[in-house]
């Protein structure tokens, strides 16, 4: 990129190279420090604490009784069936919902970027679902799919379509479909907004050039827009995947984890909160954390985008 060529020149323009450099690093430090300190204080302490808890077992029978067990909690989780079931179900959910959200989000962003009458209305309408409190949106979807009473089941059976008499949340597959749909509905606007922001830094001239070259609109989209949108799409993908892999509210309200919908976070919740198996639950939290972390790092590494460029700038 142009930056690589420009930076050395700039450095040369004022005082000595090293002086300018040091000053810049100092500024960089000062500008990042407030955020980093805050995050370290508020988030790192609980995470470190959970790490310690995960190496112990705390008695649920006798008050104050605990023992150091090393990695036993992890071994138990990784050799049992519950973790891997939740792992698979969570990835299935994340894979389905995030890919749908990215495709729909890109389409939405393209629409939102068009100039037409009623665009303001469209922007507002599209963002509405994102504004609904998650628990309420879960309840809304639950009632929509309720047998006999719900909007969807009602409409389907009135039209004589299949699915009207299905107990959606009570069947394998169908339950996951409702959860994915509810998530897509609520968070596609998030992806759309980020992608829209990326779309707007693509200049009109780029398109004009493509059009002059005789590219069709579809070709222009495929070979011009999409590559330029990559940073934004990757960014949306990172945050949506992280959220999707930690999904909790939707399955908790809709199915309580029945019918193949128990997520990693739900499993951790059950152990930590309901069963008060603090050590085991913390180990599950850490495992969830590590899983999500690995996935995010893989994204940044291989999916690219400008976040990767930033990460690669080791100076």
């Amino acid at each position: 990129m142009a930056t690589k060529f420009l930076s050395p020149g700039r450095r040369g323009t004022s005082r000595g190279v090293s002086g300018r450099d040091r000053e810049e690093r100092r500024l960089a430090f000062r500008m990042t420090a407030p955020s980093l300190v805050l995050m370290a204080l508020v988030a790192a302490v609980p995470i470190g604490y959970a790490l310690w808890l995960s190496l112990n077992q705390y008695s649920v029978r006798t008050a104050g009784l605990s023992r150091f067990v090393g990695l036993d909690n992890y071994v138990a989780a990784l050799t049992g069936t519950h973790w891997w079931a939740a792992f698979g179900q969570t990835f299935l959910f994340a894979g389905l919902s995030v890919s749908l959200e990215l495709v729909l989000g890109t389409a939405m962003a393209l629409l939102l970027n068009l100039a037409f009458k009623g665009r303001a209305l469209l922007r507002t309408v599209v963002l509405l679902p994102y504004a609904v409190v998650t628990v309420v949106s879960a309840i809304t979807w639950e009632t929509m799919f309720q047998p006999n009473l719900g909007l969807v089941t009602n409409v389907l059976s009135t039209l004589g379509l299949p699915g009207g008499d299905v107990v959606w949340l009570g069947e394998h597959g169908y339950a996951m479909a409702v959860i994915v749909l509810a998530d897509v509905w609520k968070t596609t606007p998030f992806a759309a907004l980020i992608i829209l922001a990326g779309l707007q830094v693509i200049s009109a001239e780029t398109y004009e050039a493509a059009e002059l070259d005789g590219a069709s609109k579809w070709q222009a989209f495929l070979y011009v827009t999409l590559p330029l949108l990559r940073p934004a799409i990757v960014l949306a993908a990172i945050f949506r995947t992280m959220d999707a892999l930690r999904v909790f509210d939707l399955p908790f309200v809709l199915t309580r984890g029945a019918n193949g919908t128990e997520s990693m976070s739900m499993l951790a919740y059950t152990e930590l909160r309901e069963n008060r198996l603090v050590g085991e639950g913390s180990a599950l939290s850490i495992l969830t954390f590590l899983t999500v972390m690995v996935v995010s790092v893989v994204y940044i590494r291989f999916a690219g985008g400008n976040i990767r460029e930033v990460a690669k700038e080791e100076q």
Partner: protein
Amino acid sequence: MTLEKEANQAKEPLVDLIRPSSPSQEDTTAASVLSARKSATGSASRRRTRITAAAAAAMAAGLLLTACGGGAATQGTEAPAADPASAANATGSLNVCGGKDASGIYKGTVEAFTKANGKVTAKYTEIGATTDEARTQAVQRLEGKSSECDIFVTDVIWTSEFASQGWILDQTELVEASKDRFIPSTVETAKYEDKYWASPFFTNAGLVYYQKDKVAKPETWQQLYAEAAGAEGDSFVYQGKQYEGLTVNFLEMLYSAGGEVLDENGEVKIDSPETREVLDFMVQGLKDGAADRAVLTYNEDPARLAYESGNFGYQRNWPHVYRLLNATPLAGTFGVAPLPAWEGGKASGVLGGWNLAISAHSANQAGAVAFIDFATTPDWQKHVAMDFSQAPVNEAAYADPEVLAKMPFATELLASVKGAKPRPISPVYPQISQAIYKNVYAVLSGTATTENAVKTMAEELTAAKASF
């Protein structure tokens, strides 16, 4: 016991380490904030950076120790007890904590108490919007030795857990002194290891609502299911979602069929012909349409809403539904019955309801005792029914004409309450209940056979019982 003592000894040095560090903590916080501010405004010299980092680390360490300190508590082997005589001299303020005050009973009771007592001022704090959340919030406060709450309104299934952790006062003397006030089954929910840890406040038991114009009054479960399968629009709705309510619905049948989960010695008894019989019966009911398959997604409210649509014959639910049903076009067309018996067995049920437990960290134990005494008086128990439509724990209240006027099904309710049994009593009750409802759900939804589910249930119950 010996294990516990060892653990306490092992813990001692850790606790000693924690305590002295706590008082200095605020200073550390202030210092780190100060130096952080300096470094942000002044020139960031290396040294200052290091100071900030060091202060931040110190603060983090302080916080970490504080956090750990909350969890790693030592506990005496003998739990402190509440003194019945202390109530007479009670003064000061009292904070009663519990879940959402939906019926208004909690606020109503603290206000009436404050007025009647004159010396103690009580208030009610809602700490969780759902039962799950209320428990989480209570546990957080108790683990943190918070003195914010003097009394916790506890679900009957929390008793063993709270008692075993030493979070609540032993109320044996209190309960013994006023035992004649309570219906015996309700006191059983406050019992753990031969002591009483709470006083029953109001109780709850399942009832069957039925459409008098369409179906007959249920006498046995078999008859109910046969009637329900008879015609479309006669079927039965209950709570079959994968959650605590399914445990209750299943145990109601299991108990009446003569089955049990744990025996008096705490041995797992679930692997029995009765369990298989009940599970097969429930599955058959879903197959032949006696119960709508939609019950697999129902907890209390959706079940009620479904029944209100008029498309069902029977509904298993709690007493609160009576008032709600009467506000619908179904008013006057439905009857209320105690839970039916198993064919050849007797009627039984599972007790719900809420107890009053005194926090071990309460700063006003005398006030708490006075409040409990007030809340459980036969006179106030009448108000529990009349003003808030909850089931009293005092038997006489059910025969009171004023109560009967407001709660015409009081006789049926009393029958249900008296016949009901507590859910398994164990400090690991949540795990026990999960083992039950997850496996029952698997059978009902068709993902497991009865045989496999019973085996798994027994294994999981045994594992839960063996928890550290």
